């Protein structure tokens, strides 16, 4: 009998302490829309990872070199990639539109490059920048939020004011200011030297401008935890403060981070595309969905697909992340009502 008692009690303990990741995943399993969104996101990521394969074996093109003089064979006919404009007012050439064949599936851009292949390559950069800047942003925000919330006093006052100041500048203006300075001069911070065209530049800038957004809820959470009974108990036992932060505070703010993750990644993706659209984000020869929209801007009246495709890709990823974020919040935040029946 004692043995039976013991197993049942450990099982209930395990149930009670299922972590935020598990809770979020359980919620995902129950929520059909969220599952679909997760699947969609996974497919997009996989497709982008397959970019080199697609370019080499399906589209048979090099999406990074201009191919203005090239031609392709469609239904037995040879067609130039650059065609005379059908609009009599424009004297010039416009690239071929969507062929809906494996080669130039979505048409070519102004330099005769395959849009479909570039879309996959651009997605790699866009998703990489969005996810790594979200991770960096959350790491910085956790550092600041925990420091401000746990230390309190002067540290809290200084850090909170700093966050207020950063948040008072419209996010896009702030990001644009930082981008222009770093892209023209590069970044030289002590041992860290970055060229202006490094992908790390937009990552760091986007991470930085969203730190106040993420740091506030983390700070609030930490302040709540600081007065929780188990933290008081640990302090009374004489546990050092760094141990309390590491073992009691950090594990308990994971749920806040899980909820913030998709939101921050969303904003990072949108900001990256906006910066790249203004040609101060990802720099050539690298490309992202934002730079592709910028490439398509000049062709928007004749070949809208050049700008449509990357825009739709951005919207699809953001939509999936929003749905996932909502689902996580519903599972983890008991006060959330975004999808209460």
């Amino acid at each position, binding site marked *: 009998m004692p043995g039976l008692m013991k197993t049942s009690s450990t099982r209930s303990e395990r149930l009670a302490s299922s972590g935020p990741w598990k809770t979020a995943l359980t919620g995902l399993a129950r929520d059909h829309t969220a599952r679909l969104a997760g699947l969609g996101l996974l497919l997009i990521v996989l497709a982008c990872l397959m970019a080199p394969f697609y370019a080499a074996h399906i589209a048979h093109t090099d999406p990074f070199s201009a191919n203005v003089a090239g031609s392709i064979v469609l239904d037995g006919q040879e067609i130039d990639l650059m065609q005379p404009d059908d609009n009599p007012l424009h004297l010039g050439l416009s690239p071929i539109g969507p062929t809906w064949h494996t080669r130039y599936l979505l048409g070519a851009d102004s330099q005769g490059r395959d849009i479909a292949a570039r879309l996959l390559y651009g997605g790699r950069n866009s998703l990489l920048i969005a996810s790594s800047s979200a991770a960096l942003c959350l790491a910085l925000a956790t550092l600041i939020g925990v420091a401000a919330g746990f230390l309190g006093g002067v540290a809290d006052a200084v850090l909170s004011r700093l966050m207020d100041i950063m948040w008072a500048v419209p996010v896009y203006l702030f990001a644009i200011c930082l981008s222009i300075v770093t892209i023209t001069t590069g970044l030289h911070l002590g041992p860290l030297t970055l060229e202006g065209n490094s992908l790390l530049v937009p990552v760091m800038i986007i991470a930085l401008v969203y730190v106040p957004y993420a740091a506030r809820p983390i700070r609030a959470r930490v302040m709540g935890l600081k007065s929780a009974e188990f933290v008081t108990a640990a302090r009374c036992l004489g546990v050092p403060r760094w141990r309390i932060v590491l073992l009691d505070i950090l594990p308990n703010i994971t749920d806040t981070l899980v909820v913030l993750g998709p939101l921050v990644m969303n904003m990072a993706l949108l900001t990256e*595309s906006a910066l790249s659209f203004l040609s101060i984000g990802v720099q050539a020869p690298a490309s992202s969905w934002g730079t592709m*929209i910028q490439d398509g801007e000049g062709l928007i009246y004749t070949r809208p697909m050049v700008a449509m495709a990357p825009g739709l890709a951005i919207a699809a990823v953001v939509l999936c992340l929003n749905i996932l974020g909502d689902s996580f919040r519903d599972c983890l935040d008991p006060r959330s009502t975004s999808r209460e029946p």
Partner: protein
Amino acid sequence: MLRALITRLAQTLLVLFGISAMVFGVFFATPGMDPTARIAGRGASPQVMETIRKEYGFDRSLPIQYAIMMKKLFISRDLASYANRGERVVPEILRAAPVTASLVCGAAFIWVMTSLLAGTLAAATKGRMVDRIIMALGMVGISIPVFWLGEVMNMLTQSRYHDRWWFAWVPPPGYVPLTQNPWGWFLSLVIPWCVLALAFTGIYSRVLRGDLIALSHEDFIRTARAKGLSPTRIMLRHSLRMALIGYTALFGMDFAQLVGGGALMTEVVFGLPGVGHLTYQALSNMDLPLIMATVMYSATFVVIANTLVDALHMALDPRIRPNR
């Protein structure tokens, strides 16, 4: 109350000082770049460089440079743009401000009206088809990048469907001043208004719905229901009124950010010469005086709006007034 206001004012000034110092630091104290050369432009003669260095005090210490900049911006107001020589910065901003104000006010009107309607309707039909459709549309609206939507709308209204009656009325992109031609002003802004308002409509209806539903568990709503009030009356007179407190706070923040230049992407895509557009131009030309001025302008807006929102909050909600 007075004491709270004074503390608040001091905080506001502190934040403004912090922002100006931050922007100044980013543009004038970045290691490895000489602001004199930036301002003078390429191939400037040594004499010009010398004049600039004297005028802005670049040969002196950083705090003095900062003080000179602030004096030229706020007190003597003779800070001149360097991209367009001799153009004063302050009047330039004052000329751009009405454009942004027109854009943002119209868009705000659209998104407030639509989201109040959609949010309340969704909360009232919670869990049913109408609610699901509204929420799904809101989600899609949030997910579309605003500059891309602007490009697509430009394509549809200016070229693809411009010969059809439903888009034939759209004038070419650009701004028509209200005082010159009110009807032209209206027509030129309809599409930008809708594009800018879309994402905000999505956010606000979702937030409003969430707040209304959260409130339905509150005691005072239960009391109202127990008194036998009709659901419509409870929704409009009790829940909505309470939910509007959070809604106004959100609105104040977003509105201030947009008026302060946050509508930059919409302005750039539609060629509206507003504050955001001006800032963007200033940044592309590295027109330091103009950058300094526009960023200060937008920060001032945001900070003042925050203070106003807090004051409004205290007026609307007695619970958060400071205790006497």
